[in-house]
């Protein structure tokens, strides 16, 4: 037994420790930030006046909408196709598995820029696209040139590229779900589809959402590639203007500002979605209102507002005895 401490101590009256290196680090950060601000404000070549005059220019806004439109369409098609391919990669039917793996291997390997140019020039390779009986009569056909506009080439190229990445993200999400969940769902008589849609996919979302958010942001910036096939996206719209006025820097700043605004909004949306799909995992998050999260972060403590249960630490399954 150690000797009992003197009863006169009380840590409540303790003063914070002096930490000199924090002072140095804080000062260094402040100096750098100050210099950046001074650069941004005083450098006349940034021409903030020009930036302001073009920020809401109708052509720029049209380009911005096109960028957002392409991002959303690419993401929606990419996610749906990617989820199907992910499920296919995990199929117990060999041919389906192989074709899905082949897809991912090929489309993840081709740079999106190459794909865009390729799809845009599809007519060179395949002059007509037709629907018909394989190796048999043709029912209907279109000229590829009519079908492939810059817009369709952009949508096809971005979606197919995105699908390959989403397939890998969804696949890893599915694999992260405990196999016992699938067993339980099947045991209750759920069909394969019900098991996937009701049990596996919602639980894999927790793992799928964060990388999908990065994909979304990556795709938003990736749409700037379509300017090479003369699609009027955000970057292309400012390029058109500065090719005329030679105000390259301020117009690029206009594009940068809009990209940052949209990325910030996307990030905020992602956080909300993460919180939604995290429910049921974090005891605190499920029991607390949204603002409670902030409180938890600040205090570092987790308060359980529910009536005191006789629950022990985590309630998680503890594997006992022989493992599987």
């Amino acid at each position, binding site marked *: 037994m150690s000797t009992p401490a003197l009863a006169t101590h009380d840590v409540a009256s303790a003063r914070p420790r002096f930490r000199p290196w924090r002072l140095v680090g804080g000062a260094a950060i402040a100096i750098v930030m100050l210099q950046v601000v001074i650069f941004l404000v005083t450098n006349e070549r940034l021409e903030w006046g020009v930036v302001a005059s073009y920020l809401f220019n109708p052509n720029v806004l049209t380009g911005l909408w096109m960028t957002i439109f392409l991002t959303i369409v690419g993401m929606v098609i990419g996610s749906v196709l990617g989820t199907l391919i992910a499920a296919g990669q995990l199929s117990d039917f060999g041919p389906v598995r192989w074709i899905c793996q082949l897809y991912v291997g090929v489309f993840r390997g081709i740079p999106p820029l190459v794909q865009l140019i390729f799809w845009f020039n599809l007519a060179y390779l395949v002059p007509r696209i037709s629907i018909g009986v394989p190796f048999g009569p043709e029912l209907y056909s279109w000229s590829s040139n009519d079908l492939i506009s810059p817009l369709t080439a952009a949508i096809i190229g971005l979606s197919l590229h995105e699908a390959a990445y989403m397939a890998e993200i969804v696949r890893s999400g599915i694999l992260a779900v405990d196999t016992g*969940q699938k067993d339980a769902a*099947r045991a*209750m*008589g759920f069909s394969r589809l019900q098991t996937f849609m009701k049990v596996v996919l919602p639980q894999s979302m927790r793992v799928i959402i964060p990388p999908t958010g990065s994909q979304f942001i990556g795709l938003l910036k990736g749409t700037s590639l379509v300017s090479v096939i003369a699609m009027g996206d955000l970057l292309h719209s400012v390029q058109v203007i500065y090719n005329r006025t030679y105000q390259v820097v301020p117009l690029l700043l206009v594009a940068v500002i809009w990209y940052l605004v949209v990325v910030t909004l996307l990030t905020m949306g992602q956080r909300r979605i993460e919180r939604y799909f995290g429910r049921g995992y974090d005891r605190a998050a499920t029991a607390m209102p949204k603002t409670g999260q902030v409180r938890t972060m600040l205090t570092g403590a987790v308060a359980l507002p529910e009536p005191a249960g006789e629950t022990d630490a985590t309630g*998680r399954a503890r594997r006992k005895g022989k493992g599987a």
Partner: protein
Amino acid sequence: MNAETTRKTVLEARGVVKRFGDTLALDGVDLSVAEGDVVAILGPSGSGKSTLVRCLHQLESIDGGAMYLDGELLGFEEHRGGLRPRSERQVEQQRRQMGMVFQQFNLFPHWSVLRNITEAPTKVHGVPAAKARARALELLEKVGLSDKADAHPRQLSGGQQQRVAIARAVAPNPRVLLFDEPTSALDPELVDEVLAVMKSLARAGMTMVVVTHEMDFAREVADRCVFMAEGRVVEEGPSAEFFASPRTDRLRSFLTRYSEGRQAVS
């Protein structure tokens, strides 16, 4: 227990064989479960107990023999003088007549306790939502968790989770309930609350197949016990005889080891 011969057989396995690659997990298993009976399956680790119940519930396919539920061949159907696997729909239909409780509970963490219980009745069995809800609440009361209907599974202790899992399995009124070591993942002080629920189910006449290491439960609650080793049924019989006068050396030494182990602990 003289009615035993006349009671209907609900679940039956005849010469069931299951292989995992080169391992022979089940090597010709026979099992017969009469209506209202509780059958305990005992045996050392790796003897194929889990594999047997998983096969019975068609979570694994079998490589030989046959299984029947109420006389209907499970998983296969007659076709042109031979057998062929049933369609997925038919297999699901057969699974819906049985319930299963897992060692790791396997509740769905993204749903409330109530939804865990009502989802299969409403979405699989076509029970109206209000009716399913009423039944779920009634079952929760029976397992002593009326106040947890809106909780999420991770907010519950292991014992509470397992009781919810039992309520979930019972909700669609299955013909048979299969249990795979329902108390093995629990802290010792939580085991009894789960066993109590299982006992009351047995008293209510539920047909049950229970893989367990709880010798007292097997002795007191089970009507019949089955001892498995290396994928075979080594010995089986009415519980009283099974424990009082084991016929095989394997069972005798298994039982001795268990009772010694228990004394060592207590």
